[in-house]
């Protein structure tokens, strides 16, 4: 009880201080905009990160991305498939409604609706049950080691508000279903939405009644999406913005050397890779056997790419070349797997000849041009390098809006994909989404048709393994198979690079989330 009083006091004190001091506004920009304010209607990580300012999950990621209590103060497993959560008391939504177990049950139920676009984020959850006003049970489909990771991405909405506004059913950006929640957001989070104008800007104001002690000193956040890299940099340098995230790599040096600005960067969790078709024939060579079915061809394609030069020229030395499909901080990573095959054109040619393609073959390469850092440039470089060893590559680049649906439909021979293992931040996500056959909820983003019996088995075993040590070694083993059989060609680990004006202190995270409740502005 006492502790809570202190907390409340300090919040009140903080709010007073905030009022006494001048208003602190952070103006920032990114190339994309929020797609919707409905947290269950989408699966985009940018929108998820923005909405985290308005909503709280039961458990959240702390300053070092460790899982920590948020709306739940503690939890335990009462049965292998049932987790019990103690909820935080005296928390209020932005509209003044108290936060209780009913809100958690209504939120989980809403997310479990088949119409919810983000349904897959808690694929193993069966239901949420109220035990008392501040206790909730969450039941999973069998033992499930990653429930907390999943729940960190589930924002809790207000049941009364949803009832009053007819928003108990979720929206879905894929089917075009909208509700009152698509355009207004009532959460428990550190900021409230003041206005939301798609493409023009979204404004947040501080929530003085937030349950947690603010580590930021902001009173207001003004967000404006600016698609053009050049315009975004110009706006920062002319003093119209305090933060741009991301900052274009080609401008980092210039921004860093301008007085009054600095660049902050660190490696992202996002790995960029190429999928290789495992189908009987390629779109580029109808009627002939797909050469990429031969592991030697796949190795040749890896050897043919000069990743060092891509890193130096395209990524301005800001990326990290990799040999595996997960980033170092993610469970499932191992140093031994992280060995690229190495650039060797002669070896590539030799391997192609051994596989029966001394004169190479034809393939298509498809890439987005507005999704990953310098994606189009990277692909032009790869197409050029492949062409030099005899793999005639026809490159097509397009906007993410048309690219990803086509990728989902399996229309590509070779295509670029980025994977950050979000929201769970676990290597299991690569295995279950990219490396397994499309059935029983697995292989959701496996567009190339790649399968391997060993990986299938290890993935299914890891899914129910509650012993963390054993689980991790299964992930590592499966990812080793993926590397040895060249399931994908990993390109690099993206950097997270932002630019700020002096006096703005914003911590950066490898999951590329912008968490402004840690931001301080002078």
């Amino acid at each position, binding site marked *: 009880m006492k502790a809570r009083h202190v907390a409340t006091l300090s919040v009140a004190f903080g709010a007073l201080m905030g009022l006494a001091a001048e208003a602190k506004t952070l103006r920032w920009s990114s190339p994309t905009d929020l797609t919707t304010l409905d947290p269950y209607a989408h699966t985009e990580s940018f929108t998820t990160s923005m909405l985290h300012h308005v909503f709280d999950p039961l458990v959240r990621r702390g300053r070092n991305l460790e899982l920590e209590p948020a709306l739940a103060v503690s939890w335990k497993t009462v049965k292998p498939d049932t987790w019990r959560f103690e909820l935080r008391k005296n928390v209020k939504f932005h509209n003044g409604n108290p936060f209780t177990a009913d809100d958690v049950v209504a939120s989980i139920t809403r997310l479990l609706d088949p119409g919810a676009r983000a349904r897959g984020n808690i694929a193993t959850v069966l239901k949420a049950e109220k035990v008392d006003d501040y206790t909730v049970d969450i039941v999973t489909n069998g033992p499930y080691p990653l429930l907390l990771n999943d729940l960190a991405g589930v924002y809790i909405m207000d049941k009364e508000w949803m009832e009053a506004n007819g928003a108990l059913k979720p929206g879905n950006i*894929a089917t*075009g279903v909208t509700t009152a929640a698509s355009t207004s957001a009532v959460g428990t989070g550190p900021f409230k939405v003041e206005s939301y104008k798609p493409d023009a800007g979204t404004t947040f104001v501080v929530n003085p009644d937030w349950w947690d002690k603010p580590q930021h000193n902001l009173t207001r956040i003004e967000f404006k999406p*600016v*698609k053009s890299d050049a*315009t975004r940099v*110009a706006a920062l340098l002319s003093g119209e913005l305090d933060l741009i995230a991301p900052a274009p790599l080609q401008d980092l040096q210039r921004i860093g050397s301008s007085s009054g600005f600095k660049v902050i960067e660190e490696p992202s969790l996002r790995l960029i890779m190429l999928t290789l078709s495992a189908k009987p024939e390629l779109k580029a060579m109808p009627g002939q056997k797909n050469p990429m079915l031969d592991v030697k061809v796949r190795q040749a394609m890896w050897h043919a790419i000069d990743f060092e030069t891509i890193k130096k020229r395209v990524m301005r030395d800001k990326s990290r070349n990799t040999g595996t499909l997960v980033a170092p901080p993610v469970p499932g990573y191992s140093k031994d797997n992280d060995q690229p095959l190495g650039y060797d054109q002669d070896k590539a040619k030799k391997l192609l000849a051994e596989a029966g393609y001394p004169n190479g073959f034809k393939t298509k390469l498809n890439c987005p041009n507005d999704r990953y850092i310098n994606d189009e440039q990277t692909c032009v470089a790869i197409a050029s390098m492949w062409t030099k060893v005899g793999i005639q590559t026809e490159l097509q680049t397009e906007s993410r809006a048309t690219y990803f649906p086509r990728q989902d439909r399996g229309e590509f021979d070779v295509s670029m994909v980025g994977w950050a293992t979000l929201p769970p931040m676990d290597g299991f996500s690569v295995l279950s989404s990219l490396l397994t056959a499309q059935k029983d909820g697995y292989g959701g983003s496996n567009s190339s048709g790649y399968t391997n019996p060993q990986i299938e088995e290890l993935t299914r075993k890891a899914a129910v393994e509650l012993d963390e040590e054993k689980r991790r070694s299964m992930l590592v083993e499966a990812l080793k198979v993926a590397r040895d059989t060249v399931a994908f060609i990993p390109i690099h680990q993206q950097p997270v690079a932002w630019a700020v004006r002096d006096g703005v202190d914003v911590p950066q995270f490898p999951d590329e989330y912008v968490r402004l409740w840690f931001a301080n502005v002078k």
Partner: protein
Amino acid sequence: MHMLKVLLSRLGQAALVMLVVSAVSFLMFRFVGDPVATMSRENATVEEKAELRRSLGLDQPVVVQYGRFLARTLSGDLGISYRNQRPVTQLIAERLPATLELVIVATVLSLALGIPLGVLCALKPNGIAARLVQALSLVGISTPTFVTGIVLILVFAVSLGWLPSFGRGQVVDLGWWSTGFLTASGLKSLLLPGITLALYQLTLIMRLVRAEMIDVLSSDYIRFAKARGLPSRYIHFRLALRNALMPVITVTGLQIGSLIAFAIVTETVFQWPGMGLLFIQAVSFADIPVMAAYLLFVGLLFVLINTVVDILYAVVDPRLRARSA
């Protein structure tokens, strides 16, 4: 009687044009991309899809579907943007003020500069200033708007840091209208995009003023005034310019529609949150409802402007009645 005929024929034409535009917009809606494919769940069954098709009315004859589309459109329902998840009508209403304010600033700037320059060129057609202006105007129409915009940003926003490079600055909401005219940052933000857009219009106005002035100056009426010994200042500005301005004003009115459409480029360069930016983003995202609605809206605007101007002309200038009949 004759007037009524002209009026009716103009209105009939306007209705016909709108019908054509709405048909094009309906065809986009209906046949570009399969709505069932975009709207059904990823693993929907054949039966589910057929049911969705029925509930959307897609199993009806195309003419019936078009009728329904018209009815919906007339009631103001233009569907929901795929990209923004908001009613398209609302999106357009939100963007309209930004674009219109930009167009107003551009029009004012282009008139304020174009008329004096045009007069200058007409009065001293062989002077150095006039030749220079003429040459510059050719450079002006040969330089793409986006290049002008980038250069302006580079000079005034990045190098000198005088003016903002993007967006509308601080806006004030007056009911549903949001205006940038009432704040310093809003006015500053209007300058660069306003100038960029005005340059496109400037050449046209200047050339028109020059041509009309030369025309009027060589008329008997002016010669007569000169013969009577009226002061040349009076002749040039009170008599000649006044007569020359009538077509200039008409053309400026007619051009408002073009400016709105041309603002697409300016808005892209300056990330100006108007209808043009909405449209260009809809194009790159294949957001059909927004594209169709923009087409309808701009079509309506053009038809309105043209019809009003035509009718006014017929009323004001009897000589033109024959042309419009």
